């Protein structure tokens, strides 16, 4: 059981993700998580205000079920398959984070400076979480996909729009990581 309780290496995770994509197509659907965000809008009644959301969301039920499974999988993994919450990081990464105000990097999966309940309940902390979410949701739907739909499916299918999107993901990610994060904490 040791190989399950240890963190999984990239060469285990990558092929499993490819297998998940394969299964979803084999089952007659597709791999793309961010489209669920639009489904949420449709379920919430956004179609009354914006025609874009007037869709028969029930045809996307399978994807909502997939997301429900992902939540269950996260629960199973954290409850029973992960004896340790420590993320082993490059010492340079830990040092770089300490320098910008994020302490104890890697002692848990997520930094308290962004995700603790106390941080969430501050005005600044709440808006960091909210704005991060808005950028992900707006950007993913504008680009027509997120990491699953563009980086995994689109690149696998040799699609130019996906290559452009992934280049965009990296431009945005590099700007945030190198230029904006150091100013936030």
């Amino acid at each position: 059981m040791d190989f399950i309780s240890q963190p999984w290496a990239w060469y285990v995770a990558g092929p499993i993700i490819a297998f998940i994509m394969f299964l979803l197509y084999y089952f007659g659907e597709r791999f793309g998580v961010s489209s669920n965000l639009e489904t949420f809008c449709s379920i919430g009644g956004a179609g009354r205000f914006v025609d874009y959301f007037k869709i028969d969301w029930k045809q996307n039920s399978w994807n909502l079920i997939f997301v429900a499974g992902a939540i269950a999988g996260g629960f199973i993994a954290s409850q029973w398959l992960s004896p340790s919450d420590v993320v082993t990081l490059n010492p340079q990464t830990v040092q770089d984070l300490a320098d910008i105000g994020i302490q104890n990097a890697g002692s848990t999966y997520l930094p308290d400076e962004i995700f603790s309940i106390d941080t969430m309940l501050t005005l600044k902390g709440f808006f960091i979480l909210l704005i991060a979410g808005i950028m992900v949701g707006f950007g993913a739907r504008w680009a027509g996909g997120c990491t699953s739909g563009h980086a995994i499916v689109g690149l696998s299918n040799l699609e130019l729009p996906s290559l452009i999107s992934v280049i965009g993901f990296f431009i945005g990610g590099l700007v945030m990581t190198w230029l904006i994060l150091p100013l936030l904490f």
Partner: protein
Amino acid sequence: MKYIKFFLVGILFGIVMSKAEIISWYRIYEMFKFQSFHMYGIIGSAVLIGMISMLLFRKKVVKTFEGQEIHVTPKKKGLYRNLLGGILFGLGWALAGACPGPMFVLIGKGVVSILVVIFGATLGAFLYGTYKDKLPH
């Protein structure tokens, strides 16, 4: 009953996202700092194997379990849409340390604050749908 298979595939997705630490904020940070191969290895190997899947679909070697041909819908073309949308997504990805899939997995891990991020992402999708006609695509 026909939905159970999607639930099971979702569970596998949630477990691999957790166990490979893809849901960790730090793994996204280190990727954008070029300080670890981990995420590049994951995405790179998934894409390489994914290419073989796509080839099998295109050559009709693999069909759906119901015997239908598999067509992968092409992504929408447009430089502005893909580049500007991508940049905005990347900004959020590096700040939240999570893209849409891992966000949901983090609910299962019991991270309450990720609900704010998911609410924001849903609001972001709503804002896109509302203002899309004013945006370059």
